[in-house]
């Protein structure tokens, strides 16, 4: 058993810093250099935080599902630590996408909230994955915690593809996804920069959160050496 302290690698720390710098660049570009949209005016600048959060939220929940499957398959602690990290980071981005979405919806659509499919499914994922974290907090045995939260996460993931595709499958208030073809280049560029920025930041978040989880588990092993006999693999 490896009891050394776990932490992000130098490369990951670098990625985090790069993400931060990119986010500053993209946001400043978005707030000043990018043109206002022809009808939305200045308010369109909210896309530069809303859309990147949304993309990365869905991506990271997808990671969570992948890690959950890996965790079920192998029982590896690493998989479990990355799964809980992805769920937590996904929740943060999920919250951001909802709040920025509401701030975007009020001036453009005229409402803060409406129960269309996009908004409903996005709220479901937030509540559900929050529930998974709540469940984890109540389980003491690490192996049991890993398995059960992985099982819950896989089922809850059913909602995530719905968030992405619902606007294409069903009529909704939210418009369908934009593509570079439907946007001016001046709007596409800051959005891309911010998308990568939040992705890099999220990778640093994931790595940090997963390290915390592994450190805590290692500390628990020292506390209760009999657990080691059951064979927690790292």
């Amino acid at each position, binding site marked *: 058993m490896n009891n050394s302290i776990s932490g992000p690698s130098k490369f990951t720390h670098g990625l985090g810093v790069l993400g931060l710098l990119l986010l500053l660049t993209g946001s400043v570009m978005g707030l000043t250099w990018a043109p206002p949209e022809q009808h939305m005016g200045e308010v369109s600048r909210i896309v530069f935080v809303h859309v990147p959060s949304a993309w990365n939220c869905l991506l990271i929940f997808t990671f969570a599902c992948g890690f959950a499957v890996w965790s*079920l398959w192998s029982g590896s602690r690493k998989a479990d630590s990355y799964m809980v990290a992805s769920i937590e980071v996904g929740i943060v981005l999920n919250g951001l996408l909802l709040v920025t979405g509401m701030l975007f919806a009020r001036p453009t659509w005229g409402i803060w909230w409406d129960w269309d499919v996009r908004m*409903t499914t996005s709220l*479901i994922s937030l*509540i*559900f994955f*929050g*529930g*998974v974290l*709540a*469940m984890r907090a*109540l*389980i003491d045995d690490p*192996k*049991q915690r890993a*398995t*059960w939260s*992985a*099982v*819950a996460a*896989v*089922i*809850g993931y*059913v*909602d995530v593809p719905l968030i992405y595709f619902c606007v294409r499958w069903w009529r909704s208030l939210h418009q369908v996804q934009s593509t570079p073809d439907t946007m001016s280049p001046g709007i596409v560029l800051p959005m891309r920069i911010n998308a990568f920025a939040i992705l890099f930041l999220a990778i640093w978040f994931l790595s940090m959160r997963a390290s915390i989880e592994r450190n805590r588990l290692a500390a628990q092993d020292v506390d209760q050496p009999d657990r080691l006999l059951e064979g927690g693999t790292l």
Partner: protein
Amino acid sequence: MNIVRRVAATAILIAQKDLRLEWRNRARLFSVALFGLVVLLLLSLAFGPNSDDLQRAAPGSLVVALLFSSILSLSESFRLEREDSALEGLALVPIEPMGLFYGKFLANTLFLLLLAGILIPVTVVLFVVEADARVLLQLTGFWALAAVGLAAPGTLYAAMTSRLRSQDVLLPLLLFPLEVPALIALVKSFGFILTGDPMEQLVSWTKLLIAFDLIYVALCGVLFPFILDEGS
């Protein structure tokens, strides 16, 4: 194909066992149904006494009462197994884990159907809705579809949360978000059944419910063996 037969045999055995236990201890059905009735009573008082308001609130109230009492019944369903470590016992016997799940699931679904048999007529009375036998049957049929989609993740989560502290909070916290599509489909279709379906949408909602049922029933069956492995 052998495996399918073994899973089915296990499922039937477990469902029989559960239903027999249920029948011997009818107090459980009684108390869960009574809880549903209390919810209906509270909601009808909250929305009433104007009969127009009541009728408008009827579909939603029925769904809420059904969901609340379902949670009670689901969380009860693993209590017995936990109290005598019976689940661990079952896991030791060479039994098909998937069969164990589908047996529990079957028993829970039937129990939820029984619940509807009590709550639906009461709703019709308390919420002064006009309904003939055909409408009652349609309502029950829709609930049956939703009950399948509720019982599958419900059984799985109940198996997990029954062994945790504060399961009473966790089960609804995990289950209700999953059930939102089913809940919307139910409220809509109950509404259409009770007050008419001008746009002929009932079929689409049925398809949606069936799709969700298939997803949850299949997925939960695959995942259940994992929690059984993690037994004690």
